[in-house]
């Protein structure tokens, strides 16, 4: 006979904190309001068994194997942008850093520095985005902290997340593994995140359908590792874009890199926006992209595995690792000439004309 007793598992009060439409300094004071903020915003959003005891720290049982551990601070303006929010970034960014170590991400911490006056509804939306992203990535947010700073001393909210992941046996991913002959693969069109953010910045807004590529890449990485456990290097080209990431890899491994401009996937709309703004897509940030250095014999298998995954459907070989010009990245341009692709210096600024 079916149990007719209603279940309250997973139930959370959907009501906002009506009395306080905005975060007050007192919400960070450690007293009743802090308690209320945690109980009514973060606990319902992040609810899980490891968080439930509400102790000073989470006690975890990650199992055997080597651990990967990473931390990242997230500041973005605006807090909500086409294709995501600071909440999505704070989870996906840290998950991706773990995934780039070849680890299976398991646990996250989240610390919030909230500016007095932030709309409570925005904070709830950010927390909900974090939960959704965490579910998508298969990680749990097991511990956290909140502080509130005076109005004008923050940019809405800053979030710091740290993450722990477990590295499967036999996986060894590090920049120094990269050797001449390796094939470089990207999982899809680049430069979407940076341009999406740019499109909604005050003073620079323009109409576009471009959305951020923010996504957790760990399941894609798992599929790639299944196809080739001996993957040499994984790296997510976030700030500084593909060009800066490849320069770092070339320098760390002491190898050269040759890119083929026509092979690098860039959506037409992103290309158009870059042409207008005077940006080079190679230097624009990504939040759901990875570059893999794959041993040549496994390249086809890895590419096939990536293309079978929703986050790698447009995966492409963009170049290869060479022994010529150590630590230097070159690019064969679309017209067949060669040039050097340098590190980004400063930030790309929109040009005059």
């Amino acid at each position, binding site marked *: 006979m079916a149990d007719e007793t209603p279940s309250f598992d997973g139930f959370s009060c959907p009501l906002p904190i009506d009395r306080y439409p905005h975060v007050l300094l007192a919400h960070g004071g450690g007293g009743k309001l802090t308690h209320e903020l945690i109980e009514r915003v973060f606990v319902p959003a992040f609810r899980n068994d490891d968080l439930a005891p509400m102790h000073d720290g989470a006690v975890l049982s990650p199992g055997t194997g080597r651990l990967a551990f990473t931390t990242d601070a997230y500041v973005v303006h605006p807090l909500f942008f086409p294709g995501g929010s600071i909440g999505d970034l704070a989870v996906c960014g840290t998950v991706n850093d773990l995934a780039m170590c070849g680890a299976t991400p398991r646990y996250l911490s989240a610390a919030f520095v909230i500016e007095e006056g932030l709309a409570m509804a925005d904070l709830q939306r950010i927390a909900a985005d974090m939960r959704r992203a965490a579910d998508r990535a298969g990680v749990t947010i097991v511990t956290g902290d909140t502080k509130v700073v005076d109005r004008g001393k923050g940019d809405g909210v800053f979030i710091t997340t740290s993450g722990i992941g477990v590295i499967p046996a036999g996986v060894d991913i590090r920049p120094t593994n990269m050797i001449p002959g390796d094939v470089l693969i990207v999982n899809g069109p680049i430069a979407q995140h940076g341009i999406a953010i740019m499109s909604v910045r005050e*003073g620079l807004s323009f109409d576009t359908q471009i959305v951020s590529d923010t996504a957790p890449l760990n399941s894609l990485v798992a599929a790639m590792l299944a196809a080739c456990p001996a993957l040499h290097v994984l790296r997510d080209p976030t700030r500084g874009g593909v060009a800066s990431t490849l320069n770092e890899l070339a320098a760390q491994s002491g190898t050269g890199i040759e890119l083929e401009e026509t092979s690098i996937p860039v959506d037409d709309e992103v290309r158009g926006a870059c042409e207008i703004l005077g940006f080079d897509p190679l230097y624009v940030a990504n939040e759901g992209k990875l570059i893999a250095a794959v041993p040549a014999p496994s390249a086809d298998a890895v590419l096939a595995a990536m293309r079978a995954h929703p986050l790698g459907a447009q995966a492409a070989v963009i170049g290869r690792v060479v022994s010529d010009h150590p630590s230097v990245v070159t690019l064969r341009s679309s017209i067949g000439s060669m040039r050097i692709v340098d590190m980004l210096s400063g930030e790309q600024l*929109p*040009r*005059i004309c």
Partner: protein
Amino acid sequence: MKFVDEYRDRATVETLTTAIRSAVSRPWTIMEICGGQTHAIVKHGIDRLLPEEITLVHGPGCPVCVTSVELIDRAVAIAARKGVIFTSFGDMLRVPGSSRDLLGVKATGGDVRIVYSPLDAVALAAKNPDRSVVFFAVGFETTAPANAMAAVQARKLGLTNFFLLTAHVLVPPAIAAILGSPSNRVQAFLAAGHVCTVMGYEEYLPLAERFRTPIVVTGFEPVDILHGILLAVRQLEEGRADVENQYARVVRREGNAGARAVIAQVFEPSDRTWRGIGTIPMSGYRLRPAFASMDAEQHFDVGHLEARESPLCIAGSVLQGIRKPHECPAFGRECTPERPLGAPMVSSEGACAAYYRYGALNHGR
């Protein structure tokens, strides 16, 4: 991507480079005047496809690079004032003045903002009636219509808190100054397609004739630039000195009448000091008397400014095409995009930054 890919087509590029090779019989020096073209040349590696007889030199057509240090210092002084919102195109913010740049002002509390259109600055002024909004009106003839439009719009809205710090420069007087210089080695010019889109190319006819120098109005894509070079080489080889229009898909002889009209309504020609080059007569725009109330230089008294430049920097020679960026002893050493000594290392259109970024380090010629 339509309207771009066909002008970056490898087969067309090969056809053009072959044609250039067969047209050239002796060494020629050609200057592309515009920084946008310099950028395209190094970004696509166009110079490496040319026969060694052809030397490309990079002209003073980067508005960020040629804005005088005195004017940057003035911008810095105005931007640091309380109650001012200082707006500018992005790459102007990093140009070093005598002591600091606009980003430095921002870091120490100045309200410095990047805008993409001068009309955004007008909107800011309308939204902040208790603040003074200053727009750094930089650029060649290309940006002048939009900047003039901003002044007209501010007038229409009755704004009294919108100001222009005008740093406009003009191409034809610069070409005349380069060709008239005793150290000149430029034998033909690629004129800037976007400038001519606004102004047309009639004002280049007397220059070509007076200095017996071919001038080819040229676009910005690899196919455009190579085609422009081909037309220039053919003229040089045949001993002609005409004005030709390679960029006919965009540029008309008389330019854009509406754009020219709004420029004429707001601006008038005036002498202008070019960074690293000196004062060139009637080579800039200033606001007409009817718009003098918007002139930031007049409105904000910043006192006497003593402009100082690095003695190492050879920007002047680079901008006149006398020396190449990598021939500067400071290039890539004391002077890098992170710590620029001179403006051409700052702007993405600056010859030094273009050489640095796209690795023309190993260019032998």
